[in-house]
């Protein structure tokens, strides 16, 4: 049976503290603008029952990675464990992958002239450790492991999340548990994409 490693995000537990994002960025010494992991925030409802929820996303290590298909120099590899690795040494900085990935995962670093992205901390994983972001999660909202195990064991493990593009295109390995309050995944939700440059909750997209 083939394996597929991936992240599981429990949005009930995520408090938007960005420890995951900082731990990743600090470990790999990424410049401020490059966010391999990124916490987005959404709001729904009105005061005093309004809810702000957070969605922490890095690479989804897709089963059918669009980044890989778009790469003219084969800088991408999909490992046997399912992790999608980008090799910056092979990258020519053409940025096709930044267009083909529906999730905005590969990011171009103009200073170094190459793209980079979350590689699932594969070297830590190979040493039996969890990715930095998962190790640093304060609430246990973020986990990492076999996608099938997430689907079997977690409170909820759906493919959809607020603001998350249609998962049928690239079959991302990330699974989500939605917040207990607010809209639920089986219901139809209207999603507005976050405006460019939006940082804080209120300027991100809203789910109503």
């Amino acid at each position: 049976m083939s394996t597929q490693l991936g992240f599981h995000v429990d949005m009930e537990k995520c408090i938007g503290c960005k420890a995951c994002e900082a731990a990743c960025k600090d470990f790999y010494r990424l410049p401020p603008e490059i966010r391999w992991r990124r916490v987005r925030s959404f709001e729904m409802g009105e005061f005093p029952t309004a809810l702000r929820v957070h969605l922490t996303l890095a690479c989804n290590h897709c089963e059918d990675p669009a980044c890989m298909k778009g790469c003219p120099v084969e800088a991408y590899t999909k490992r046997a464990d399912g992790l999608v690795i980008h090799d910056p040494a092979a990258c020519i900085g053409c940025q096709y992958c930044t267009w083909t990935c529906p999730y905005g995962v590969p990011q171009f670093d103009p200073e170094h002239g190459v793209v980079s992205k979350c590689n699932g901390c594969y070297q830590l994983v190979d040493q039996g450790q969890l990715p930095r972001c998962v190790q640093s999660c304060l609430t246990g909202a973020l986990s990492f492991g076999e996608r099938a195990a997430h689907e079997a064991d977690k409170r909820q493990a759906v493919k959809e999340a607020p603001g998350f593009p249609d998962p049928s295109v690239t079959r991302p390995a990330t699974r989500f548990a939605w917040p207990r309050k607010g809209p639920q995944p089986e219901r139809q939700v209207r999603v507005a994409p976050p405006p460019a440059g939006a940082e804080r909750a209120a300027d991100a997209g809203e789910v109503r």
Partner: protein
Amino acid sequence: MTGGMNRRAFLKLSVAATAAAGAAGAVIAGEPGSYVSGGAAPAHVEPDTWTYSTCGFCGTGCGIEIGTKDGRPVAIRGTKGYPVNDGLLCAKGIYQWKTITAPDRGKHPLIRKDGKLVRASWDEALTAMTDKLKQLLADHGPESIACYNTGQLCMEEFYTLGKLMRAGFRTPNLDGNTRTCMASAVVGHTRSFGTDGAIGAYADIEAAEVILISGSNMAECHPILFGRVVKAVEKGAKLICVDPRLTQVSRLATINLAIRPGTDVVLLNAMAHVIIREGLIDRAYIDAHTTGYEALEQHLRKYTPEYAAGICGVPAGDIEAAALLYGRAERSLSMWVMGINQSVNGTIANNCFHNLNLIQGKIGKPGCASFSITGQPAAMASREVGGSSTYPGYRAIGNPEHRAEIAALWGVDPATLPDKSPAITEIIDAILEGKIKALWVICTNPIMSLPDQNRVREALQKLELLVVQDAYETVDTAEYAHIFLPASLWAEKSGIMVNSERRLNLLKPAVAPPGEARTDFEIFLDVADRMGFGHLFPYRTTEECFEEIKRVTRGRPNDYSGATYARIEANKGLQWPIPDENSTGTPRLYADGRFNTPDGRAVLWAVDPIELPELPDEEYPFNLNSGRVQEHYHTGTKTRKVPELNHLVPTAYVELNPRDAEALGVQYGDRVRIESRRGEIEAKVVVTSQVAPGSCFVPMHFNEGPVNRLTVWAVDPFSKEPNYKQQAVRLRRA
């Protein structure tokens, strides 16, 4: 690095110098110590040394290890197995190492000449400082001199500074910025229990069935603690949130009470009313361990949920439900921070929490506490050893017996010890009146953090001598300094910090201070020697100083007798009291029901709310609430130097409800002018339903839009803590 190198050569280099070069592709997956860098240098840097220490940000007191490589700080990680944080850190904590190497670290003393601060030697700077202080002492007496410090030094520094100002300079004018965050908790503890000292333990979070979090955006301001709360809630604990603004605490709450600003006392009285009415009190505990119950019961009769609902603006049924949830649980925990303390109602609201828990006997038991959380890493240490408004060992300034004890321990005449302790707001007013002529500001930034910035600026400009001692020479308050003294950061010194749960945590120096910067401890001893007060300080190291502190606090509530630096490190912190060398500390105070009042009983307080200094009106229709965000700390002197944090929240903003934004004709990203009766600022608009219509929220971190230019000059009558959370403003498009 990779730019001019072919791939083959690069891979060879990667394998050879894995940790340093690091950038590598899938082909060398699994190579130990080599990590993908994002294409090029800078890559992951593995420290060669990890040094045991304690986080220098909030009062949570996380155990950290400071990673250095070739003597330079390169990383910080949480200490695995540390009872506070077990290896975890918040985003600020992770990036804290960058605050050490910030380019604006003060490296040399500076003296103002022809209007500009210019480089000076330590001898020049300290001679200029002490000559002026000697002249003021001779001409105007000790009351012409004041010192305003912080909650971010170590215990030994607070003790030394307190002794220097009170026994050396003999001035009463010593206060800390702890006045602006914890004074209401201090006075609240003292009024209810006899002395100060937070009574609970973080382990109560996991032990509680119900957790009440009030006036605390814990998810942003104490993320490590809130992470523990989230895990407890996942395991079935119920959460009650009280906050006029919605937060992650309110999202996870079983019951959320989004009360009108400043109505906490009424709400807490109503909760106690329901608990008494429903017989959810512990009558035996009340009879054995408290005074004032009959008067309290009588007083609370009018505080029905219906009455409170009209004032607090939340449904009576929700107040009732919260009280029942809290009261019916066997183990209930209350935690609060600045939303309670920073108000004219701060002290009495603290007393209301203590009432609520005392009448149920929910004190000193696992999962039960009336728990005030601290905002600074050593604010508790300052409170315990006389760094601001008390003498060491929680001895009261105004108590002649306590002064006599201290005088005997210090070998000074008790008549020379000050018997009063004015608050910083009183010090500022005394500067404006010309009574105080010199101010020594240490590790704090009053221009940004005190209310009514224009008044504070005016005062600082009137001073004949302003000495600013700080790690950063760009600290806003240095704008008016006559002398700047460069000080070490926490990572550059040894000493003890004390966290919210009374845990003594150890600092060990991981790096050398930059340039000629010195530890605050060294600066205090040098000033003492130059002033002729050297005989008061028979110790020369912080560890020797701690031995004196132990003698001075022995037998007091905060007894550290059994603590040594080695034992603190070996035990990963020790919670006081630590009476002897076999003690592993005391998780909870008052487990035996004996309090530090003269009769040993806790005091129940029958209180009514105090009127807020300023309410919204036709002219200034919005309530302004100030506070913090998770990415920044206080006035931003540290976190705004960290590009990765500053990128996330780069500038001043104001949160506005969508309804108000529409009425004002503004959208996200527009700029608005915010005006109060004290001043005006500009800020970026963030439209969010997290704030109530008619309210707005501005974080305190940004000197380009300083919220404290707007805040009101009003203090709690008991604690003298400023009222930062409720004032009236108006807004218009900029």
